[in-house]
Structures are given as structure tokens and as C-alpha cells.
């Protein structure tokens, strides 16, 4: 099969509805969040007292050694898990379960294989009762933004891994979430596709102004994308470093003069975390 062309897609307009009420000063607030599981002898402390606030519009990357609980942290914000200590708040409201105010992109695309690509993107709009015409319009807009207009009527299994992950991003953005939660979304892709998708998610973030919480095990990815880079320690996961960065606003973060120093700071913290 010839590899499908993945052209640079045109700009994405911001959703017409505001993604989050502007009155809140934090999109996500983590208040002394702890999580442990298992009982008695096998009890494991996955996260220990994580305290952080994510302002609207931030691109927060979370990096750390494997098993540090960074995916667990994302699943707590998503509402798939409930903290055993502390609380998670999204736009000022405590999280009690999953909801359309938080879009999730998994490591595996997890597209619904029985729906077309367009059906997947429209799923959240349908579930929340958006009328048909409006659904079509919004799905077309999002598919255009991720460069999948021509693949709209295909089934997910007919797409390459990179295209599937683009569709998953479009699907997560469709209901206009206050924050986009991404759990190592590019880890399963080849290097070239990964780099292209990193550029694309940065562009989508810049044009829509959406808030992103992005978990990765790659220091390069965390530095390239994050306006704030959080480094988690090995289990029990604690916040080792919370480093602000202007790099994602630079024209080309990878060749920016500030890049090497920042990369070294983060890499050193991750080495400490793994030690």
C-alpha cells in the first residue's frame, strides 16, 4: 500500500463556543493529590501530594521515568481514577468522573472501529445533543484542521497509525473541551510521523488557545511542547521540578538558542528522578 500523503493542513479556527468560562483562574488545579492502590502488604503509593495549577491556555508537559505515575496523574484529571487523597478541580469544579469538558487522547488511538472517521469525530457532538447540521460543520472543520478531509468516510483500520492519532485528536477536540489530556499520544509512532504530529499539535494549540496536559517519557518532546515542564520522581511520584518555558512560543523551538540549556535542565532532573 502506498503511504498516504499527510499534507500540512490549513489553520484551525477556534471553537465558536468559549472552551472554558473565563472567570476561573485555573483550568486544572491539583490539590495535594495522592493515589495508592492495592491493600495492606501489596499497597502501592503511585502519587504522593502533587500540588499544581494549570492556567488556561498553558501547554503543560509531564515527564518522568517509566512507572512514575505520570499516566496515573492524567487519568485522575480525566476522571477515570479517583484520588485517595486531595482533590482534582477542573475549571473550579471538583472532578467526579469523565466528562466532555476534558478531551482525552490515548497512547493507542482507540478510535471506535465500527464508525467512520467522521463518525468518530461526531461522536461527542452526537452524545451531547448537537444538531446534525452543526455536527457536520464542526466535524468538517476539525478534519480539515488535522488534514483528514479526504479520509472522513474511511474506517479507522484503513488509516495509518499517524492518521489514526490525528483523528483521535480531532475527536477529542470536537466537544470543545476546557483542556486536552494527552497520554503519550505519539509514543507508538515512527520518528518522522512523531515529529510532524508534534509540530501539528503545537500549531493547533497556538491557533485554538486550548489548554493541554501532555504526558510523555521523551525529554525532547516535553521541552519542544511545554510552556511548563513538570518532572515527576520515581514511585511514589512526587513533583521534582515545575519549570516554565517560552520555547513553544519561539518560531522554531528546536533551533532556538535557549533550547540546549533548557533541555539539559530537564534531562538532569529526569536523571535525578530515575536515580
Amino acid at each position: 500500500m502506498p503511504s498516504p500523503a499527510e499534507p500540512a493542513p490549513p489553520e484551525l479556527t477556534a471553537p465558536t463556543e468559549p472552551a472554558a468560562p473565563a472567570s476561573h483562574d485555573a483550568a486544572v488545579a491539583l490539590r495535594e493529590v495522592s493515589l495508592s492502590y492495592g491493600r495492606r502488604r501489596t499497597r502501592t503509593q503511585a502519587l504522593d501530594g502533587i500540588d499544581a495549577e494549570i492556567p488556561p491556555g498553558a501547554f503543560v508537559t509531564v515527564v518522568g521515568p517509566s512507572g512514575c505515575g505520570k499516566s496515573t496523574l492524567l487519568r485522575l484529571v480525566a476522571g477515570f481514577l479517583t484520588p485517595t487523597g486531595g482533590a482534582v478541580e477542573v475549571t473550579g469544579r471538583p472532578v467526579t468522573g469523565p466528562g466532555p469538558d476534558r478531551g482525552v487522547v490515548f497512547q493507542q488511538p482507540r478510535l471506535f472501529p465500527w464508525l467512520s472517521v467522521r463518525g468518530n469525530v461526531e461522536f461527542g457532538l452526537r452524545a451531547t445533543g448537537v444538531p446534525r447540521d452543526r455536527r457536520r460543520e464542526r466535524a468538517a472543520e476539525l478534519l480539515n484542521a488535522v488534514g483528514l478531509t479526504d479520509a472522513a468516510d474511511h474506517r479507522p483500520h484503513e488509516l495509518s497509525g499517524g492518521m489514526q492519532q490525528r483523528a483521535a485528536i480531532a475527536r477529542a477536540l470536537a466537544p470543545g473541551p476546557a483542556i486536552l489530556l494527552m497520554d503519550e499520544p505519539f509514543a507508538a509512532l515512527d520518528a518522522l510521523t512523531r515529529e510532524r504530529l508534534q509540530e501539528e499539535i503545537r500549531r493547533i494549540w497556538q491557533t485554538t488557545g486550548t489548554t493541554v496536559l501532555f504526558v510523555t517519557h521523551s525529554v525532547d518532546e516535553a521541552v519542544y511542547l511545554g510552556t511548563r515542564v513538570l518532572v515527576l520522581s520515581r514511585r511514589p511520584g512526587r513533583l521534582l521540578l515545575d519549570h516554565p518555558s517560552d520555547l513553544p512560543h519561539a518560531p522554531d523551538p528546536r533551533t532556538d538558542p535557549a533550547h540546549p540549556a533548557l533541555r539539559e535542565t530537564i534531562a538532569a532532573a529526569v536523571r535525578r528522578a530515575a536515580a
Partner: protein
Amino acid sequence: MLNGKGVAAVVRALALRTALPVAGVLVLLALWWAVAASRLWPPVFVPSPGAVWHQLIATSTVHDGQRGYAGHLLHEHLAASLRRILLGSLYGITGGVALGLLIGLVPTVRALLSPLVTFVRTLPPLAYFSLLIIWFGIDELPKTTLLLIAALPPVAVATAEAVRGVHADYLNAARSLGARGWQIPLRIVLPSALPEVMTGVRVAVGVAYTTVVAAETVNGVPGIGGMIRDAQRYNQTDLVVLGLLVIGVSGLLIDAALQLAERRLAPWRGRT
């Protein structure tokens, strides 16, 4: 793109796929003919292919003022049997999917009904057919009910297993997209279980097929099973063999149709 070599390989594969089964059938026919012609056993044990062919013609036509077999043409017997299979399977599949969803989704229902489904599944259909006749008489109702009871458990078990096997992140993704309440079982659980449910349906139709002959042992004319049963009483072995062949061939065709439906309905099977 396919090059010349690729085309040749495809043609060869296709030829092999059609030629081999045809060759197998021909060899079996030749064997059958040879054994019958050798007169090793009398025709009442091994009727000749010619005799069976003759019965096929006789039962499919009106001759000597007699219409087919027992007043019905062969295709009418087949249609009667297929109608019972269709109705029984349809009820069984509907009930099986509903029951399987409940068993898979509700732990209490699982604890209550799971042993019962397994119990019914292990019973030979003929065993409860007597009970159904006492309850419902000897017309269509006990036959359809028998096929329903036979077809339901495989679908229920397949559906329940598939429902429990739905990947948690499909449910997580759906909830994160705002789906709630009835939307989860209807829009996520059922479609993602579809490939396994279709396998259950194929098993169920197969079971209904094997059960229909049992159902037609009582007041089964018109019906292929009834025809076989009556022919056995009069030692019309050629007619018995004809009935077997008709059931077997039509079963193969229906299974092929179901496989096609499965590929159409769940083209992602094995690719996610």
C-alpha cells in the same frame, strides 16, 4: 500494485480454492458410486447415486397424480424447515443478545442466570422437546420454541463474553466525549461486541439447523426432517440420503451468507 507474478499467484490460489473442494466432492461421489455398484451391501443400506438423483426428480415434480413427497414438493419441504430455522434463530438471537448484554453488564444478573444458561446449553434438544410437546401440542409452537431454546445460549454466551471483554478505554473515551446512561451499552458496548456476537449467531444457526430434524420428528410434514423421518419408516433409504444432502448443502450456503454478513458488518475484525 499487482505485477504479472502477483496476478498469476492470485489466479493459482483461486483455482486451488475452488478446484480442491470440487475434486473432493467428485472423489466422494465416485467412491459412493463404486460402493453402491459393487453391491457389497443391499440398496436399502447404500442406495446408488442414481437412485437418490431419481428421488430428487420425483420429489421435485408432480407425477402419476402425486405431488412431490407426501403432497409437498421438495422445495416446499425445505421452505417449511427453513422457515422454522429462521423464526427459531431470530427469536433465539434476539433473546440471546438481550440476555448476553444483561449477563455481561449486570453482575447480579450474571450470578443469577449464567448457571442456568450453561445448564440449558448442555441439555440435548430432544430431551426438552417432550416437555414442549406436552405444554404446546404438536403444531408449530413447540418446534419454534425448541429452536429458540437451542439457538439462544450460544448467542447469550458469546455476547456476554464480548461485553465483558470491551476495552476499558473505549468506555473511558466515550464518557470523556459526553456519552452517558443508555448511550454506553447501545453506542459502545453492543457495536464493539458485534464481531463476537456474529460468531455466536453463526453457531446458533448451526445448532438450529441440527435441531430442526429433531423438531420435525413429530408432525413434521411438510419439512425436510419430517420427510426423512417418514422415509425411514418405509426404508426409503434413497429419500433419507436426499434429505441429508438437502439439509447439508442448504446449511453450507446459509453459513457462507452469514460469513459474508460478518465481514460486511465487522470489517475491522482482527485489525484493531
